[in-house]
Each structure stands twice: as structure tokens, then as C-alpha cells.
């Protein structure tokens, strides 16, 4: 997308020249920039990615801090059956069921209304975002990146039996559709997870299962990058000054592929969030009355003709989060691309 800028003859040269002159006017050595800082500057220039990042930050902060706050906002009312006085801590809880206010429209009491079970939609949305982000962090942040780096770098650097095992395992995973595998495993072990970890059990199960299916792809990617990096002369050069293999991996290989992993991971997050949504949608994810964006969509399905907002709100939220991660990933990819050096 930003390549267009370089194709336009009128704007591109002047802009580049100006920047060039500005940099040259500085004292040499004072503007020494690391590749990371360069990339960061290029990223900041990508308005779409920065916008997505801001939006995502708002979503994350809201889900983490607005939910507890929301549970303190509102009057104390009497429960509609039983005449017990309850406060917002209860009726603004994402799991509280009040059958007398099913499908209520937005009001000062329930900011975005309630769903078929009388649960507060706003609270459920915030809780759902938390679930999506939790899955993203566990699956992509820990399993995808962690296992991917460890196995990818080792297989790429040392080759041999580990490389062969990784290749065969990856082939196996590729041959078997990831989502189908996840459906199978979550379906089989859902009850066990519920028994053992309570209502959150299925969520952990979903996270681990999705993680298992996604990391070989990352490992293969990291392996490829390691292979090409290994042949670079500076690796050989560092061996000639007596650097050990461990140090070469830590000092020379990891820092050089970290940016690429970063980009790949960001793009993986989108797919993972969608997959979690799908699993919840078909009832294999978070257990009601818990909340998840996919579960919310599923719950609204029966009432779509009458209360379309109940389906639109979680769908929109999911779309925005996924798009935001994709935009950020795109922006990072452009920022780290050595060919987009300016």
C-alpha cells in the first residue's frame, strides 16, 4: 500500500530529498539509528496501522479496566423477582441472569441492553474481548512464538534428526485441518476440562488445542529464516572469532529473526481469535453463562430477526479486533521490510 507513494514521481523525490537533507544536516554519528528504531519510525508513519494500534489499545484497556468500573456504576435496584436489593456489581456482571429483562433495549441501566437471558450485553462484550485476548496471548504469544522459536531455530541451525522430525510433524499437521482437529479435541475433552477446571476449563482447552495446531507453521517459518541466516557471512565471521553455537543463536540469529517472528505472530493472532470465536459459536468453547464473542453470536442466532443488535454488536467487535491485528501486522511487515528502507 505504501509502495504507491514511491511510484508517484511528483511527491516521492521531494519528500525523500527533504528527509535526506534534514538528516545530513545533523552531525554525523549523532543520528545513529538502530534498525529497530528505524522500523519503529516507519511504523509510526503508517496511519492505518497506528490507528489500529490505538483502537486495539482502547479495547484492551476497556476490557481490563472498564469492566470492573462498570460493575460499580449504576443505582441499587430491587430484583424483579424476590424483592432483594441488588447493586450494579451484580446486574452489571457479565454472567448474571435476570429472566425478567430479556432482550431489553439500551438504557441507562443496561448501556447496550440485555440478551435473551437478561444478561448485560456491554459487560458481556468486555468479558468477551478479554477471552479473545487471553486466547491470543496464550496461543500465539506463548505456544506459537515460544515453541515455534525453540523448535524452528534448533531445527534450522542444527538440522539432523530434529529437522526431520519437525518436517514430518508439520506435514502431519498441515495434512489435517487445524480447526477440524480443534473441534475433535475440544469435543472429546470438553467434559473432562469442565469437571477439572470448572467453567473456565473449556477456554484453557481451546487455547491449548489451537496452540498445538498453529505452532508447527511458525516453527517451519522460523526454520527457513534460520537456514538462510545461517549461511550469511557474519555468522561465519563470528565463528572465525571463536563464538560458540549457543552465542551465535542468541546473539546473531535470534535478534535478526525476531522482527519477522513479530510480524508473523501478529498475523497469526487474527486467525486464532477467529478460530476461538468459531469454536465458541458451535458450542465447544466457553461455557454459558460465561462470555465470549463467539458464544454471544451463537446465543443471538435464534433472535436475529427480532433483536439484530445482539448479533451485530459481538460480530462487529470481533471484526474490529481481527482487522486491527491484521492492520498492525501489515504495518509491522512494511516497517521491518528491508526493501522499504528510506
Amino acid at each position, binding site marked *: 500500500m505504501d509502495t504507491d507513494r514511491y511510484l508517484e514521481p511528483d511527491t516521492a523525490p521531494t519528500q525523500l530529498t527533504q528527509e535526506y537533507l534534514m538528516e545530513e544536516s545533523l552531525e554525523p554519528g549523532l543520528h545513529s539509528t538502530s*534498525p529497530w528504531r528505524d522500523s519503529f519510525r516507519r511504523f509510526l508513519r503508517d496511519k492505518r496501522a497506528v490507528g489500529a494500534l490505538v483502537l486495539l489499545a482502547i479495547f484492551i484497556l476497556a476490557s481490563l479496566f472498564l469492566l470492573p468500573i462498570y460493575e460499580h456504576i449504576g443505582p441499587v435496584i430491587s430484583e424483579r423477582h424476590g424483592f432483594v436489593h441488588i447493586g450494579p456489581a451484580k446486574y452489571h456482571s457479565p454472567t448474571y441472569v435476570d429472566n425478567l429483562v430479556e432482550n431489553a433495549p439500551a438504557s441507562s441501566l443496561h448501556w447496550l441492553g440485555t440478551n435473551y437471558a437478561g444478561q448485560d450485553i456491554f459487560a458481556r462484550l468486555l468479558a468477551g474481548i478479554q477471552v479473545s485476548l487471553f486466547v491470543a496471548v496464550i496461543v500465539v504469544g506463548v505456544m506459537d512464538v515460544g515453541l515455534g522459536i525453540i523448535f524452528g531455530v534448533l531445527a534450522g541451525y542444527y538440522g539432523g534428526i530434529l529437522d526431520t522430525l519437525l518436517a514430518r510433524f508439520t506435514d502431519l499437521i498441515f495434512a489435517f485441518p487445524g480447526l477440524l482437529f480443534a473441534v475433535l479435541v475440544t469435543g472429546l475433552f470438553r467434559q473432562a476440562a469442565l469437571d477439572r477446571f470448572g467453567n473456565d476449563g473449556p477456554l484453557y482447552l481451546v487455547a491449548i488445542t489451537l496452540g498445538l495446531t498453529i505452532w508447527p507453521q511458525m516453527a517451519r517459518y522460523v526454520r527457513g529464516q534460520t537456514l538462510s541466516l545461517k549461511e550469511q557471512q557474519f555468522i561465519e*565471521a563470528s565463528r572465525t572469532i571463536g563464538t560458540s553455537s549457543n552465542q551465535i543463536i542468541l546473539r546473531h540469529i535470534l535478534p535478526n529473526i525476531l522482527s519477522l517472528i513479530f510480524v508473523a505472530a501478529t498475523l497469526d493472532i487474527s486467525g486464532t481469535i477467529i478460530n476461538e470465536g468459531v469454536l465458541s459459536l458451535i458450542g465447544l468453547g466457553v461455557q454459558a453463562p460465561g462470555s465470549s464473542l463467539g458464544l454471544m453470536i451463537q446465543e443471538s442466532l435464534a433472535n436475529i430477526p427480532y433483536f439484530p443488535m445482539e448479533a451485530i454488536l459481538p460480530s462487529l467487535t470481533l471484526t474490529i479486533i481481527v482487522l486491527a491485528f491484521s492492520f498492525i501486522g501489515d504495518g509491522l511487515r512494511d516497517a521491518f521490510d528491508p526493501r522499504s528502507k528510506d
Partner: protein
Amino acid sequence: MTDLLTVRDLHTTFHTRAGDVPAVNGVSFTMREGETLGIVGESGSGKSVTALSIMRLLPTPPAEITGQEVLFAGQDLLEMSQDQLRALRGNKMAMIFQDPMTSLNPVFKVGFQIAESVRMHMNLGPRDSWNRAVEMLDKVGIPNAARRANDYPHEFSGGMRQRVMIAIALSCNPSLLIADEPTTALDVTIQAQILELMRALSKEFQTAVMLITHDLGVIAGMAQQVLVMYAGRLVEATDTRTLFAKPAHPYTQALLHSIPRMDDAQNERLQPITGQPPDLLKMPVGCSFAPRCPKAQARCQRETPPLVEVGAGQRAACFFPY
């Protein structure tokens, strides 16, 4: 001067699926301390593999290094463990490469990369090793060394990066520097500067230089001793003066005829060497140069000529030298 490096009957074979490739085939030579030894030969003649075998930097497998001995300052490198070798590399022997553009890690400051080698081998703290890095940058002629040490490799030109590589290589004061085509990727004026720098620094640091090149002009200007390699074998070993004045091996003669000379008669055509070097997978029996040799006789096709003394300080692997 005492002997610094003695290589005796070095063989390096790559085991590949297509068969065994004898990349280095029985190479023997001696280097004295502080001496500059040139190794010439065309691509694939085994120059670089010889150097990498001496440093034991080839991955084994597929490579297999055998030989009688490779004595470096009295120690046999072929007998050493990888840990012992690591302590030696960068400290007592260092190497610089052909392409300075990819020889530095793009994500670290050049000062850090020079200091890394110092820190590893000289037991200096971060501050001292950094100072040493700046000092080395200054020595290799980088202006504003103290400031430039904070720059990243992409802020240096090719010639400057090669200077940085030389700084890294010489930072621990090694007794042997292996330069694998150090100027091939640079343009001619920079080539001259880098060679001049290497000559001056090798003198200052008393470092012996093994200079690998296919540029006979570089040899003439830099080396005291020359090895000529062809198809993994040494075909001639002599001092530089003799090499240019009285080359013994037909291959050396042909090489010299194929480059232009300033003192040549006008309008004389250059004589290319006809044919191709042999496929190392299917080495001919007998002299490997025989198929292209104008003087080849029946004996050359049958027997492999040994490297023997043909004159004072001149060895050649040919039955019919001169």
C-alpha cells in the same frame, strides 16, 4: 623467522550424494611468522577450502578433513577439540571475508561487534573492550572512531565495512590472518587502500597473512611467497619474484599469459587457457591439468606428478617444468 604454520598432506573431501568431492587433495606448505603468503587459483581450485580446513570451520559432515598434521605455533590443529579451537580462533588466528556487506551483523553497533571478540579472548571488561574497539577503528583509518563505533553497519560503505572487519580480525593481535579474497567485492581504488592498510597493519602487528585471491596483481604487490592451486592440488609453490620471473608449471605460465602486462609488446593478444577445469567428481587419472596443458605427454595422462623441488626455493608439480 620461525615457522608459524606447517601444513602437511592436507586432504579435505566433501561427501555428497553425487559422490566424494576431493576439494583439497594433498596440500603441503609452510608459513613463517610475519610472512604474507598468497594463494592463487581459479574458482573451485580449493583456495578457500584450504583456509577453512586450517581453521576447521567446515561443517563435518559433509566435509572430512584428514592430513598428516596442521601445526600452528607448535600445536596440531587437527587434533584439537572444538573448545580449544574456539579459544584460538579470533585470538591467535583470524579471518576476513570477501563480501563486507554481509560480514557484519546488521542489528548491532560496529563497536559492539569489535568489542565482542576482545571481550571473549582478552578478558577485558565492557568499558575496556569498547575502548579497544575504538582504538582499533582508529587504527584501520575510520575517522571519528569514537563516534562511529556507535553506528550500525548500514551506516558504513563497503570499504569502511571491510576496514571494520579488519579491525575485528586484528583486535586480539593474532599471529595469523586469513584473508579470503578481501578486496574482490570492492572497487579498484578502495581495493588499493584496503591492501595498503592490511600491509601496514600486518607489519605493525607482526601478523602473518594468508592472502587468498585470483588476482595476480594483488599477489605481486602483497605476497612474499605464493602457492598456485589447481583442482584441489598445489601445482606450484615459490617466492613471488620467481613466480613472475620464472614460472615453472605450465598452468602458472598460462595464467601469466592470460593477463595483460604493462611491459608487453604492443598489440600482443592475450592467450586464454582453453577448456574448463576438471569436474572434481570425475578427476582425470594423472595430472589434473593435462587435458588443458600444451606440453602434456603420455606420461602426464598416466601418473600424477608430485610436488618436487625444481629450482632454488621453487616447487612444482610437473614432469616437464619450465
